[in-house]
């Protein structure tokens, strides 16, 4: 689209009528584009809108065969209170934060160290060992969860935070992305750090990490999102409220009225869902630049 604009500016048309016609056509096209884009946005946002208004309806109104598109019986904010008290939603949130924090911490520590070793190391078998990392990229947890479950059971970590965190303690993806970034840092900066008497850890902390800050923030945000939204592993390992995270907690809330879908209080469930999305939305809008650019960077590699 940028190019088109440039084109009409640079090519002065000799015939005025012609240029007027093409200008009108352009305005028409742009308007059509805007309208179509708005329609797409409305369609994409509709489920979120529906979640919101469902969360404010009474049971009776929610079960009506012809649904109302705005709560007719007033806004029932007490659904949010029910959501918070029916299950310990705040405890679930805390569990999610704790799990995500530890996974992030462990992934970053092991990841930054390993990425440095693989990007700058001069040891034997460096490339052979790196193949181990690349290979791990291709083996999802959904393949290996049975033996990992056995391992966690042997450690007696079922239904503990340790059991929740441990399988996410390392990320091959993070090592891979950070290594790419570390390789682009000029060796002379690292040498300067060493000359100044910093050890490897010191050089990492004071030279490499600050220089690669934006890419580290980016991969960290990906880890946070993955942790926050992970459903599969917590579903396997969480048995009680002590370890339930938000993703499984919300599904648990829905089933807490029994398996029959006609007795599930979806208004309360939607209220809980909306509450659980708040931290994500905040994170998203405060770090949008990092997040979007991060995803595109991954694609360019």
């Amino acid at each position, binding site marked *: *689209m940028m*190019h088109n604009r440039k084109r009409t500016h640079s090519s002065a048309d000799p015939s005025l009528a012609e240029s007027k016609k093409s200008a009108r056509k352009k305005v028409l096209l742009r308007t059509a*584009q805007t309208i179509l*884009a*708005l329609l797409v*946005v409305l369609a*994409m*946002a509709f*489920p979120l809108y*529906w979640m919101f208004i469902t969360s404010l309806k009474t049971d009776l109104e*929610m079960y009506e065969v012809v*649904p109302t*598109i705005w709560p007719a019986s007033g806004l029932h904010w007490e659904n949010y209170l029910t959501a918070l008290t029916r299950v310990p939603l705040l405890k679930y949130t805390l569990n999610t934060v704790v799990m995500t924090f530890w996974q992030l911490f462990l992934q970053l520590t*092991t990841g930054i*160290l*390993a990425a440095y*070793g*693989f990007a700058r*190391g*001069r*040891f*034997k078998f460096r490339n052979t*060992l790196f193949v*181990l*990392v690349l290979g*791990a990229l*291709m*083996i999802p947890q*959904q*393949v*290996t*969860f*049975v*033996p*990992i479950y*056995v*391992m966690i059971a042997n450690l007696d970590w079922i239904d503990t935070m340790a059991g929740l965190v441990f399988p996410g*303690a*390392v990320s*091959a993806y993070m090592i891979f992305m950070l290594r790419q970034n570390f390789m682009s840092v000029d060796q002379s900066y690292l040498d300067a750090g060493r000359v100044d008497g910093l050890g490897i850890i010191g050089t990492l902390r004071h030279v490499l990490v600050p220089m690669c800050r934006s890419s580290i923030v980016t991969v960290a945000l990906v880890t946070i999102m993955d942790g926050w939204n992970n*459903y*599969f592993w917590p*579903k*396997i390992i969480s048995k009680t409220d002590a370890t339930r995270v*938000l*993703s*499984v907690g919300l*599904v648990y809330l*829905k089933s807490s009225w029994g398996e029959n879908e*006609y007795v599930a209080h*979806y208004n309360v*469930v*939607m209220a809980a*869902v909306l509450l659980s999305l708040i931290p994500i*939305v905040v994170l998203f*809008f405060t770090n949008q630049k990092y997040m*979007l650019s991060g*995803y595109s960077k991954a*694609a*360019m590699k």
Partner: protein
Amino acid sequence: MTRKKHRRESTLEFLCTVPALILIVVLTYYPIADLVRISLTDWNLIKPTYSYVGLKNWQWLVTTIKQNHVLDSFIITLKYTIGHMLIILVFGLLLALLFNRMSKGFAFMRSVVFMPHYIAMSTAALIFSVILNERFGIANAVAEAVAGVRIPWLSSGSVALLVMIMIASWRAVGYDMIIFLSGMQGISKDYYEAAMLDGASKPKILLKITLPLLAPTTLFLAVTQFIASMKVYALADVLTGGGPYRETEVIVYMIYELAFRDFRIDRAAVVSICFFVFLLIVTKLTMGVSDRKVNYDA
């Protein structure tokens, strides 16, 4: 630097990689080996002991292939994956073309389209189970008003699979759009200027320049999202429970049920290995394609 110091240095650098390598071996490679071992036992999670029974579970896989649902679950998962990928790649590209305008309004609209990507699949399934509820959901109210029919969104297998594809695509299409947009921005302006000098029309430029040069982006999306969507689990678990009549029972759901409902982790291991080998073959194949066919000039 002296030689001794050099050796010390490279040892330290090696040590940096050790924690990650140990964790990767423990959490990825050891479990693969353990899968093979478990597949040779008669391990039932509720029994305290187990013994090695040779290839009995593999025999189960082959001799009961018509009844054991393994093949079916692979086919269901592949249907889901191919449908999902077609939708998000085609619509991701179309949306990228539609939303490719540099203004504040469009930037905001792009972020709305991208938003669903941040919602957990399990949570998305909850939201859609309200919309698609066959009795009081808005989807059927609309269907009845427009076409006079009520659609069995989740109680018919083929419709339920389509529903799963649509929900997953709702979550992913904005992501594909963003990646395509950044791919389009990576294309050198020289190509466009040359084409305009030659008097090429807009559709022609799209067809002959933009699309071919987006091939690497498309391949990146195809490879990463293929594996990601083969892992589908939450949708089946929250929305359909694999039903009706196991018609939405995808691979991972099947492994999970074998392991934690039937407690037959020996059989679960066998299916896991099949899944692993399948992913390996697909990855190898797509890498072969990417080495030969894709234009990396952009």
